[in-house]
């Protein structure tokens, strides 16, 4: 049995949190909360079981709680500035703007869909693992994945009406009619 120390999972958790929240600070806060919760609940973790899966489960629950309490949106929207995000990404210009687009589209997905899509692709988890982590049936994972992929495709294909310094605040306004269309 390979026992990876908890530290070995932090880079993955940070990256996933970054994509989930779209914000550098909110992401690390989420990772910090996850680790703190791991500390307070470590007795509930059966040593020898999959630590990575457990940490992602803790993080998912924390994230969803934050979303339900309206914390994430309220906290995130004023703090995200695409110029800040741009400074974070070290890549050639084209892939840089693509990464920004991608992140922007991700943030326009409903939270549960974004989580599922990221766990499957970025974290390369199986559908069964994602079902356990998000606490839903595999069928629900599949339908969320379908909706997320369909939606991402639409969003990425949309003509880019993005001035360089667009704030996410305005993105949320843009997102509102789109969300209505989904119903």
């Amino acid at each position, binding site marked *: 049995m390979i026992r990876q120390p908890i*530290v070995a999972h*932090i880079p993955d958790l940070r990256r996933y949190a970054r994509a989930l929240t779209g914000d550098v600070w909110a992401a690390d806060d989420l990772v910090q909360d996850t*680790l703190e919760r791991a500390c307070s609940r470590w007795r509930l973790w059966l*040593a020898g079981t999959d630590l990575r899966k457990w940490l992602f489960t803790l993080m998912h629950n924390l994230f969803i709680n934050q979303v339900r309490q309206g914390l994430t949106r309220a906290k995130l929207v004023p703090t995200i500035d695409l110029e800040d995000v741009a400074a974070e990404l070290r890549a050639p210009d084209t892939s840089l703007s693509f990464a920004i687009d991608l992140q922007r589209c991700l943030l326009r997905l409903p939270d549960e869909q974004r989580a599922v899509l990221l766990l499957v692709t970025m974290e390369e988890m199986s559908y069964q693992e994602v079902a356990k982590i998000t606490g839903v049936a595999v069928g629900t994972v599949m339908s969320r994945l379908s909706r997320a992929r369909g939606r991402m495709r639409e969003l990425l294909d949309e003509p880019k009406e993005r001035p360089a310094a667009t704030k996410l605040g305005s993105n949320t306004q843009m997102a509102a009619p789109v969300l209505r269309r989904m119903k």
Partner: protein
Amino acid sequence: MTNSVNPDEMHALVDKLQPEAQNLALETLAVQDPQAAETLASWLQQRAALRELHRDVLAEPIPAPLLQAAGRFSEMQHHLNASWRQAGIAASFVLAFGVGWIANGQFVGNQAPSAVLAKGMAQHEFVRQASFAHAVYLPEKRHPVEVTAAEQDHLVQWLSKRLGKPLKVPKLSALGYELVGGRLLPGDIGARAQFMFQDAQGQRITLYLGAVDQKSEKMDPGETKFRYEADGQVPSFYWFDQGFGYALAGQISREKLIALATLVYQQL
């Protein structure tokens, strides 16, 4: 979507196939169902892009507060504390407990001898005395114990009185070990007790217990640490709980010893 491929199959194509197989699927679909092929191509692109997103974060140094939190978690894994006993969820307890011990044994085993010594001379001394007592009385044919199991009530009363703490003899019959008896031994700051158990094949194990000098201990007296000691002549598990030390020793496999130590811990 009027796909020849249903959505679940499409996801599987994207998430589970090797690139060569994906290319083949793309080519096939392009002929059979161009619309599905387009969807597949788009999803594949998405997946590839998402796998690259924020990849630079992976290489970033981990911020100190996160490292600290992780450090606390690792510490806790190695230190089972007594409140767990009160929380006591039996099933998870036994499992996590045993594995925790194994981890702990490895952890200690990796440390330099000086680091182990620094953990507290009193504990070190306790373990040394435990294995000494084990080695002395184990082979004893005629007088392995002072008071035999036949007089168990008397044995418990007597040792409880001498150690200044109500004792209980753990029942290990579930794992095939019956009490042979016990004896009183001298310790650093008072009396110590040794219980001996034996299985049907005559294999003996001993449980050594008694107060440990707290003054020279660095750890919180309420804290329990579990360690596996295999360096000496006799493999043993030992732990400390509220100023009292326990050492279970025997020439048996580590797994068996864990199981027995778990039983002991649950009953004390």
